[in-house]
């Protein structure tokens, strides 16, 4: 049975001995985040902070540090358990996710009485953002942040709205600034429709909506389709939605917290600096659109999951890097196949999950890689992705060793490195290789100056060195002997992983 809420996801983690419930008083002011970062880096249990110091009310909210983080050797593990999918091989998990995405399920509306997120309802002046212990995550951040939040926004092409993820900086009881970067669907709608018409955009910021919803918020869903129906497909059951109190949007009924409000036109508040997914503090402080709060509903003693951004680079995993590998990768693979590209698997580079992607592909015709890069750079890869590495279809993009070997041996500096749209392409201002002057403060959130992107053709064209010796039976027997001798079974790349037969 797939999990249907954040709380049942915590049950999955609990059964897997993957969480620790900390009952000591812990502060939202750096302490919870520092503990989480150390747990992320040491690949230890996920911390649930049962007692958060200095809360303003009797809400008794609990923090959860990077609940979606998977083990460093198998980031998709807990998502696989949550969705009843295979977890012993990355490619097998990907194919399982893709099968589910092929069968979306429309959501089901429930009454407020049946919706746990309505256990507590506060509207108008009674609704206060300061009721919750939003964490102050890194020294130098511009403020306290909601980092694992799914923003539900209107979508004229979808009955259920558009769902996406945006970090949000809390300012006071009724205002926050939301990072909206033009190029993504919801920000485009805000900047180029609502704001031009001087209309506020109604939204609902949902916290703790569970792994299926959070996964689809990570995905690039085609216009006219709905994230929530794909979330139903992942779960294998319809997502239950409930109407908002103050607008026409529908939100997940099991969400821990729902913040209803409006993104105001032509109003800005400071946003950042913030230590984001690059693993560096990015600045400077910018001006971003304002979320004006109209109502807050929540479960009793709600969980407030958060992500310590920046700790998912290098060896470390956090919720963002895991979502990229466990949800973004399967979605991208499916999307490229549907677009007509003969892609075996597309996955983010595990050491910096948004900047680089590795795509295993057959080069079907001359120019195919250029066309594939062009397609992605102009669509879902426009903002965050700077590089693609193309490898042979029998190379596993989830295996860093195989990818490094491919780049080192098969990417010819003379012919296989292709800079793309040199200094002509849009760029998010979150990067660190542009100076603050270059980033500027453009009104729609992208950098003032343009940048470039690149792709690397690391395909071997039939000249890939051996990855092992012996036939399949001999290798499997060898692994059995090694396991008997004490080598953990998880150390082995599964036999059915692509490339294992070489």
């Amino acid at each position: 049975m797939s999990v249907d809420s954040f709380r049942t996801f915590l049950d999955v983690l609990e059964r897997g001995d993957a969480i620790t419930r900390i009952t000591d008083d812990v502060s939202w002011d750096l302490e919870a985040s520092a503990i989480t970062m150390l747990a992320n880096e040491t690949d230890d249990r996920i911390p649930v902070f049962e007692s958060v110091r200095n809360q303003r009310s009797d809400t008794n909210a609990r923090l959860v540090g990077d609940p979606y983080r998977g083990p460093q050797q198998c980031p998709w593990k807990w998502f696989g358990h949550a969705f009843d999918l295979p977890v012993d091989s990355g490619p097998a998990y990907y194919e399982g996710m893709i099968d589910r995405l092929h069968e979306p399920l429309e959501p089901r509306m429930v009454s407020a009485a049946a919706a746990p997120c309505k256990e507590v309802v506060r509207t108008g002046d009674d609704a206060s953002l300061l009721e919750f212990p939003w964490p102050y995550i890194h020294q130098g951040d511009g403020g306290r942040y909601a980092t694992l939040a799914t923003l539900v926004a209107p979508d004229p092409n979808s009955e259920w709205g558009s769902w996406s993820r945006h970090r949000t900086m809390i300012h006071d009881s009724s205002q926050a600034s939301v990072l909206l970067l033009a190029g993504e669907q919801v920000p485009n709608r805000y900047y180029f429709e609502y704001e031009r018409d001087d209309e506020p955009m109604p939204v609902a910021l949902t916290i703790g909506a569970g792994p299926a919803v959070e996964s689809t918020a990570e995905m690039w869903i085609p216009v006219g389709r709905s994230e929530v129906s794909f979330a139903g497909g992942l779960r294998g059951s319809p997502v239950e939605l409930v109407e908002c109190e103050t607008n026409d949007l529908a939100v997940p009924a099991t969400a821990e917290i729902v913040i209803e409000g409006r993104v105001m036109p032509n109003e800005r508040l400071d946003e950042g600096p913030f230590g984001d997914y690059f693993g560096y503090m990015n600045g400077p402080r910018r001006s971003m659109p304002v979320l004006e709060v109209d109502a807050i509903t929540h479960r009793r003693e709600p969980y407030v999951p958060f992500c310590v951004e920046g700790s998912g680079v290098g060896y470390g995993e956090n919720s963002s890097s895991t979502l990229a590998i466990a949800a973004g990768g399967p979605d991208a693979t499916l999307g490229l196949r549907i677009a007509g590209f003969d892609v075996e698997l597309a996955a983010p580079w595990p050491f910096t999950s948004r900047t680089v992607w590795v795509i295993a592909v057959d080069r079907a015709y001359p120019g195919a890689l250029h066309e594939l890069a062009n397609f992605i750079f102009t669509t879902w890869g426009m903002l965050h992705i700077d590089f693609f590495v193309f490898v042979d279809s029998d190379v596993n993009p989830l295996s860093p060793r195989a990818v490094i070997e491919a780049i080192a041996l098969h990417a010819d500096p003379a012919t296989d490195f292709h800079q793309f749209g040199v200094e002509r392409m849009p760029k998010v201002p979150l990067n660190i290789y542009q100076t603050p002057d270059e980033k500027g403060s453009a009104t729609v959130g992208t950098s003032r100056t343009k940048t470039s992107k690149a792709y690397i053709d690391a395909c071997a064209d039939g000249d890939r060195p051996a990855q092992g010796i012996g036939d399949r039976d001999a290798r499997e027997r060898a692994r059995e002997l090694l396991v008997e001798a004490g080598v953990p079974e998880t150390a082995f790349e599964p036999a059915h992983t692509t490339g294992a037969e070489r």
Partner: protein
Amino acid sequence: MTAFRSHLEFLRKTDDCCWLERPDSPSPQVIASEALRADGPVLRCTTNDARVDLVAGVYGGVDGLSRGNRFPWSRLGIGLGVDQEPEYVDVLEAITDLGDRLDEHDVTYVERAATATDPSVRELGFPTPPDGTWPRLTLGLLSVGTDDGSYWTPIHGTVLDDNTIRARVPDAITDRFARGDVVSVALGVPAEALTATYLLTVTDRLSTPIEERRVGSTVPVIPTGGGLVPSSSEVVLEAEIADQQPETRSEKREFWERIVDGTTLTLDVTSVFTRDDAVVPFTPLDVPLADDLQLVALTLAAQLYDRANSYWGIAPVEWLLLPASGRLGVCVVSTEMLYAGFEWQLSNFLFSFSNCYDTVVVVDDEASPRDLGQVLADIWVKAHPSRDWLFSESDAPVARLPTYSRDGTGARLYVDATWDPRWDEEYIAPRVSLTESYPPNLRAAIRGSWSEFGFDTDPEEL
């Protein structure tokens, strides 16, 4: 000096060795290959008969692509006596020292541990790879005695019958002997000895006898029919150079043959000496993270590190790594950025002193070789996609190790993943890390309560 069997004991104590009884099938070569692929521990295959014990991964394994307390240089560093948890640069310097020239001979003679035995070479039980017909010996040390002294090189080969070995040795050594001469082959030698043979071979320094190198004063030796060999060697073979040199183009090569030319010899073994319960290293060839590959990676890195820090009057390079996962097609260097443009100067210096690779990645001096994960992020995050990926014209000499085919010339690439020294301080983004994102008293308090919070790991390892 650490005898080979003592080296194995140290590895066992660091919980980096697994044992299994040698099976009839599959070949130990296959088991070793799978252990390397799994980034697994050192593998020891034991026997209860006259065959030697076999050990793989003593010098290889460990790709550094996941967090751990083992690193690509850890096992060799332990064997070199650097430390139980050796620092990378200490290992590089220890390797370099082995090749230093000495003004005076300072050789220590110690009685040979291996004694004469009845078994033939075949009865020693070297493993036969699944694609081979004959047993294969690898990671051997060839000793050639001359009036000037003894010369050591790597040797590997196949055992054709009871006493015949078809062997591969560096071309450069063949001037030191003639047909009918006796040479010696030592297996299971101290790490210093084997490392020195690789270092001197891949850096083209085989013209000086080992008595005039630091390794000659470090490793106790004993004269044999062929030349000096390490006294603690597990197995010593004495052999005559046979008359015929068979054609062996289809034979597999050890990795040093990608750097220098090799040649084929036929050896008629006349004597076999073994220690009690002898144990010898072996490696599968041409597979990821193999021992021969890692030995070449570390010895070449040691040479390049030493050269780069001996050129500018100061030592700007913090460390230099040739990742075995890239089969030496990429060089990563961490350096202080002395001035604007130094990254160009350093990269091209490194291209000048090795023809293995055509890609150099330059990272800042605060990068750690123990954190290759951070390096593999910074390449893409710190380097601007157009300004910091810099290509030469396509008229540079082609690199030796990448596999794409080119005719004579090609381009070189260096990636500048450092902060631009021309940038104002305010442009430099602080890293997100435990150290830089949280105050010290908070970090100390958390570490103090770590186990009470319900965590199992050791936070001090970070």
